[in-house]
């Protein structure tokens, strides 16, 4: 199934065209096409091994597609990598930060890498957002996994990205921190028209935060639409039941 391009007047900021990634004989992502517009929050859903992380990695240039094209902010990721990546950011539960540096030092390094104009100001801003300012002098190795996740999210917002890729961003957060994070992401979308493309196994979160859902199974998009549309199309009561149906091959 190919996801149809949204009828919208808004600018398309993420576009995948017939994207395929094969690792040897295994097709991790198979002929996937979709468009995401400015200010959309799109959730990528799928069982383990469905190809979600591979898809995000291709979007960020970490993995080269076997075939197909990716355009971010109207530019080809292969040709305009540097220009694109300076306006994009990423956080993943699988990625961490140098542990022998303080929280503030880590953020200051990434502010340098992204060429942030007023680094001190921006660092204070993101630390305040994720309530980690009191930990500024704490070595990262002494942070809890939830605090580390908040640091990674703070890093991901340092450069005021136009497009944000999040791979299971709230996986290690307590319900309060996760709720605040979702609220922060929503407010960034509303205020700055930030586009957010993210994966999560928290179905309630997906339902509550996503404008649209892409449901991936064995590397293919098997459903797409608003959470309500996807739930309705599968004849279920909620996204969790849809997920279980897809994951157990009942679709």
């Amino acid at each position, binding site marked *: 199934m190919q996801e149809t391009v949204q009828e919208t007047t808004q600018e398309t900021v993420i576009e995948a065209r017939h994207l395929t*990634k094969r*690792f040897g004989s295994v097709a*991790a992502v198979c002929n996937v096409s979709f468009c995401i517009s400015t200010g959309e929050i799109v959730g990528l859903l799928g069982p383990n091994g469905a190809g979600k*992380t*591979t898809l995000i*990695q291709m979007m*960020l*240039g*970490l*993995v*080269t597609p076997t075939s197909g094209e990716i355009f971010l902010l109207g530019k080809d990721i292969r040709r305009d*990598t*540097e*220009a694109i*990546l*300076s306006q*994009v*950011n*990423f956080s*993943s539960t*699988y*990625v*961490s*930060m*140098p*542990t*022998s*540096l303080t929280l503030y*030092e880590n953020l*200051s*390094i*990434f*502010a*340098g*890498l*992204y*060429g942030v104009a007023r680094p001190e100001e921006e660092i204070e801003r993101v630390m305040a957002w994720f309530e980690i300012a009191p930990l500024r002098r704490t*070595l990262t190795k002494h942070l809890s996994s939830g605090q580390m996740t908040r640091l990674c999210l703070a*890093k991901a917002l340092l450069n005021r990205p136009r497009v944000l*890729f999040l791979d299971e961003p709230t996986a290690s957060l307590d319900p309060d921190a996760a709720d605040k994070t979702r609220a922060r992401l929503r407010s960034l979308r509303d205020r700055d028209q930030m586009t957010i493309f993210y994966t999560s196994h928290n179905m309630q979160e997906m339902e509550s935060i996503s404008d649209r859902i892409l449901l991936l199974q064995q590397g293919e998009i098997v459903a797409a639409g608003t959470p309500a549309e996807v739930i309705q199309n599968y004849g279920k009561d909620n996204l969790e039941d849809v997920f279980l149906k897809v994951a157990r091959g009942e679709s």
Partner: protein
Amino acid sequence: MKGYRIRAIIRRHLYLYQRSIPRLAEVFFWPVLDLFVWGFVTLYLRQFPIPRFVEFLLGALILWDILFRAQQGISVSFLEEIWSRNLPNLFVSPLRPSEFLVGLMSVSIVKVVLAGGVGALLAWVFYSYNLFALGLALIPFVINLTAMGWSIGIVTMATILRYGQEAEMMAWGLAFLVQPFSAVFYPVSVLPSWLQPIALLMPASHVFEGMRAVIETGAIPLDRLGIAIGLNLLYFALAVLLFFRSLQAARKRGLILRIGT
């Protein structure tokens, strides 16, 4: 190439060393240990009529450590990114791979200066050996050994990118693999005739032969320096090419996130 991104990489590693005593000690530990062990050996050997042996050995020890620190400055700094699961963060930032390389090379210069400085100071304090007696020749010697260290470091990094973290032992072993053929503690002529052509392909061989020539005659062997520079340029270019090819392969095989997490 953007200076602010290179500075960020340098800062990232300097923060690491300013706080971590084990990491800082690692920069000094081996040079100091080598100097003590071999320094006392040379004191003993002074009793025998081997002319300039002490200068040869202590000079070789300090200069070899410069090559080793330059290599470690690249390969261990790269491993630090893997150990801290930070590599994907760097590769999804606008940092170019070439800027990353320049950043790591700059970090290795700091290591070379620290380790070389401490080595030279200890040799002077304990054995009255003045490395700076090599005069102006010391500058091209250090530059050539640093460049060879960089090439080995970049090859190590490329191998880890390609084969994953199992290849990390190369970060400690690869420099010692070339040491027997690099005429560090003995001239190329000592080697079996079939090994001599291999030794002559090592830039370090020409530097160490040059060092011994300067100690013996005071004259800088420009021909040897020229060969060392030529070989270093060639090897550095090949190492950088290998790094970019390995990065390309790692992207194709989806290894960056896997080795970095």
